[in-house]
């Protein structure tokens, strides 16, 4: 592992003994030994098995639905359709257009009744004694469709005569920025550069398909054990099933990958309905094909940049148009397109800016959250545009960026002041330097280099008024318990809380046990999305641990007869620090006393009735909603600034692109666990590289062409070089001890860096992702092949 630490800023907690060390994550060995149980691993007595009957048409009316033959099959416990849902039409918690009244028709039905809008849309649910019987029952469900015109291309869907996916029209969300005087800016420009970039549907392709087991308990509570990024969906599930909020209990398991795809409700409502109907435990596990059909995708975007620049590279004006393909239902499209809008011009100062973004409904798989959440799509466009500007001006790509980089204290596209460090130039230089010597070209192989510098928010949109809670307690043997409702995606969300508590309470991380991801039994910590958990729950845990520490030190101060400030805790002991003045009441110097074991101190506190368990609430800054017609104000808690550089070899005979070198450099504020940060940088960039070169959910007139890992290709160990991760620590983030977020930012610069490298190799750009051999050869031919 290569990492360079630039500086370690001062903190309240010092010296740091646990934080910043590459400690083994608390969840690592359980997973490595196959001990960890995932959602599909649970069974219960009397358990039924469920299957989902899905639409075989991307756009149709349901004329008739007959489940009687399926119901009659021996071993079938129940078959549910939209008619069986309490209150008829139900909806999951889809947002409307934020900042306006909730959009009519913007909710997705749990089960389709009169119409289907995408291939694979759920229509009926079956629960049966065995999985085989449930599968057989699906074949006995009779549905009669009547053709209903569909629309598959977002540009077509925006036309006035286009089929309407749902009322009132196909525009799911729209956002605008109007800043400065764009016309004047263009008039001032020496050159105007215009380009359009596109990117496809992408699947999260987490290794663990969606799964869950649900049952009713003796208080009539619907318990759902499920892999989810959001245990707080319990409220929406309760509303959908028609029970009070406190009658749904979501017990999150370790998640076998999510990346945003397990942010929306997947199996939960189906399981809740089936267990409530049958009063028996029910299990539902998606197949891989069903996972690809049934969960959200990354939004395809079409992004056009028109940029006015001076000959020295300075941007004078930018006009940016974005069209996001929202698929069949909005889900998080309004927010994804908002993120894209706000970072549309990248980490650059653009005083004259006009941005128009639309998310448009089509009869395709629905789209929602995916690591990078619109910010990544924006980056694919703005970073390729920066290289195209450099080309037009015959400038070095880094020089063009340097002429425009945001700096601390500058305002971003919507007028939010950047408070934290912006080390983009240093990041780019370090990443490019780390590429080392250029690989020589041979024969038809062209070698190219590219990089990207990006900004990605961490923490949720501030008008959501985000909060997290964490509970920390110390036991009477000095061992520590953290209880925090953080869903663990596998990025070390729970483990980093342990590392923080261990730091504050002076124990090895192995002495900390964490309980997580339970909507009833652990304090609610919000969603594991938006790169927010280290920021939110890390701060809550830091605060709760500090409250426990204060109690311990208060009691220890009395024991040692010193000020609490003269005490420290390390290695399970409280001790008087070297700088303390130790004097008796008659002013004689005392011997330094022996350290006090933490367990003994905890027992003293317990005997005195002192509070050794604390619940802390952390709140992000709260703001008001911004005006969608002209976004202006503060939207995010902070941003992570990043660079990624790659070297590629492009075979101009076969069109094949091989990644030779890859380096990510990120200012993470403070690396709580450097090994975990490296893992994020390497893993996030791997997803970005896959997006750039090979991944595409292909949909033909609404029909899924890539329903398995045979067709939907993700990088294997042989497709990627080792990404070198360079960690910088400015200490200026709003997370615990100055940390910034890295989950999403790790991905954002990788795809545009690859696109820029391929363009560098070929001398001509492939502006559409993925950069397939066919597209490479087409571009090479367009250039006239040399």
């Amino acid at each position, binding site marked *: 592992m290569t990492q360079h630490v630039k500086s370690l800023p001062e903190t309240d907690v010092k010296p740091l003994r646990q934080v910043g060390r590459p400690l083994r994550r608390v969840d690592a060995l359980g*997973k490595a*030994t196959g001990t960890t149980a995932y959602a599909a691993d649970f069974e219960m007595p009397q358990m039924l098995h469920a299957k989902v009957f899905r639409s075989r048409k991307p756009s149709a009316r349901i004329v008739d639905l007959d489940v009687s033959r399926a119901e009659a099959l021996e071993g079938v416990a129940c078959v549910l359709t939209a008619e069986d849902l309490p209150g008829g039409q139900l909806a999951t918690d889809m947002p409307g257009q934020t900042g306006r009244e909730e959009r009519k028709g913007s909710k997705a039905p749990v089960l389709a009744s009169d119409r289907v809008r995408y291939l694979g849309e759920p229509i009926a649910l079956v629960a049966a004694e065995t999985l085989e019987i449930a599968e057989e029952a699906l074949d006995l469900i009779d549905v009669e469709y009547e053709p209903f015109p569909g629309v598959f291309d977002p540009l077509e869907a925006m036309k006035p005569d286009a089929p309407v996916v749902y009322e009132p029209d196909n525009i799911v969300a729209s956002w605008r920025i109007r800043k400065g005087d764009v016309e004047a800016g263009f008039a001032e420009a020496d050159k105007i550069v215009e380009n359009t970039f596109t990117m496809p549907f992408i699947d999260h392709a987490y290794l663990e398909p969606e799964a869950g087991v649900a049952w009713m308990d003796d208080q009539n509570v619907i318990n759902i054990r499920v892999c989810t990024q959001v245990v707080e969906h319990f409220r929406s599930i309760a509303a959908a099933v028609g029970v009070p909020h406190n009658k749904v209990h979501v017990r999150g398991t370790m998640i076998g990958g999510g990346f945003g795809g397990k942010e929306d409700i997947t199996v939960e409502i189906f399981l809740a309905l089936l267990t409530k109907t049958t009063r028996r435990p029910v299990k539902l596990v998606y197949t891989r094909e069903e996972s690809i059909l049934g969960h959200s995708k990354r939004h395809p975007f079409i992004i056009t940049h028109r940029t006015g620049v001076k000959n020295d590279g300075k941007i004078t004006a930018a006009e940016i148009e974005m069209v996001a393909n929202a698929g069949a239902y909005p889900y998080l499209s309004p927010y994804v397109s908002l993120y894209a809008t706000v970072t549309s011009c990248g980490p650059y100062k653009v005083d004259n800016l006009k941005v128009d973004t639309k998310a448009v409904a089509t009869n395709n798989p629905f789209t929602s959250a995916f690591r990078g959440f619109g910010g990544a799509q924006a980056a694919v466009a703005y970073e390729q545009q920066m290289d195209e500007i450099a080309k037009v001006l015959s400038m070095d790509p880094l020089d063009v960026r340097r002429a425009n980089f945001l700096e601390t204290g500058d305002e971003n596209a919507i007028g939010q002041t950047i408070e934290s460090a912006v080390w983009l130039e240093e990041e780019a230089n370090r990443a490019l330097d780390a590429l080392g010597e250029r690989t020589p070209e041979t024969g038809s192989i062209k070698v190219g280099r590219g990089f990207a510098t990006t900004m990605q928010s961490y923490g949720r949109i501030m008008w959501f008024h985000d909060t997290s809670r964490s509970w920390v307690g110390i036991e009477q043997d000095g061992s520590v318990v953290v209880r925090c409702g953080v869903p663990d995606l596998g990025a070390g969300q729970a483990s980093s809380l342990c590392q923080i508590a261990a730091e504050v309470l002076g124990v090895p991380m192995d002495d900390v046990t964490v309980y997580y991801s339970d909507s009833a039994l652990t304090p609610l910590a919000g969603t594991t999305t938006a790169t927010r958990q280290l920021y939110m729950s890390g701060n809550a845990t830091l605060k709760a641990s500090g409250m426990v520490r204060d109690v311990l030190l208060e009691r220890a101060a009395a024991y040692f007869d010193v000020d609490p400030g003269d005490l420290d805790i390390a290695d399970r002991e409280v001790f008087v620090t070297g700088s303390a003045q130790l004097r008796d009441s008659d002013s004689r110097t005392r011997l330094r006393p022996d350290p006090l074991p933490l367990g003994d101190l905890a027992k003293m506190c317990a005997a005195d009735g002192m509070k050794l368990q604390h619940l802390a609430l952390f709140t992000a800054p709260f703001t008001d909603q911004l005006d969608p017609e002209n976004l202006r104000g503060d939207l995010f808690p902070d941003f992570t600034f990043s660079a990624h550089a790659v070297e590629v070899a492009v075979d101009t005979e076969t069109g094949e692109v091989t990644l030779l070198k890859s380096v990510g450099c990120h200012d993470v504020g403070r690396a709580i666990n450097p090994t975990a940060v490296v893992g994020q940088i390497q*893993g996030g960039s791997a997803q970005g590289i896959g997006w750039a070169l090979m991944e595409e959910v292909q949909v033909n007139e609404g029909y899924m062409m890539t329903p398995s890992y045979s067709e939907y290709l993700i990088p294997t160990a042989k497709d990627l070089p080792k990404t070198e991760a360079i960690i910088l620590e400015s200490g200026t983030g709003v997370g615990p001890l100055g940390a910034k977020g890295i989950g999403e930012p790790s991905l954002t610069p990788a795809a545009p860096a690859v696109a820029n490298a391929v363009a560098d190799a070929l001398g001509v750009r492939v502006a559409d992702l993925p950069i397939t051999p066919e597209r490479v050869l087409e571009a090479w031919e367009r250039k006239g092949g040399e």
Partner: protein
Amino acid sequence: MKETTITLTINGRTHEPAVQPNETLLQVLRKLGYTDVKSGCEKGDCGACAVLLDGDAVNSCLVLARQADGGEVVTNSGLGTLDDPHPLQEAFADAGAVQCGFCTPGMIVSAKALLDRNPNPTEEEIREAIAGNLCRCTGYAQIVDAVQLAAQRMSAKTGGES
């Protein structure tokens, strides 16, 4: 369909499950409670269900249970435990090779099969050996590191002998 009884030795224990002609080894292993064998695609694309069958790493979703009759199966949980982990399991934990962990059991099984025949593999050999095991979290670098670390520790333990 007609069930038949087969004999499997799994992690040292003998089982005699009744299986359907079309049941896969993956399905039978999970039914018997070996849930560390993960189901990721059921068609041999992802490697999450890899186990050692008579010493070779196989995708258990591509083996009919009947074909494994009389065979010896070792799953990842048969290699070591939380209290006594296999060096590969320990190295995966130490090197950051475990993120979501869903690919990990199959990945470790593939690595075990590699080290059994090649105790000191190169990076390229490791990448070749795990090419059939998809991981969506790590980008594979820390997994490669982990296999190298395990190989070093194992050869140090055996005094450098292979």
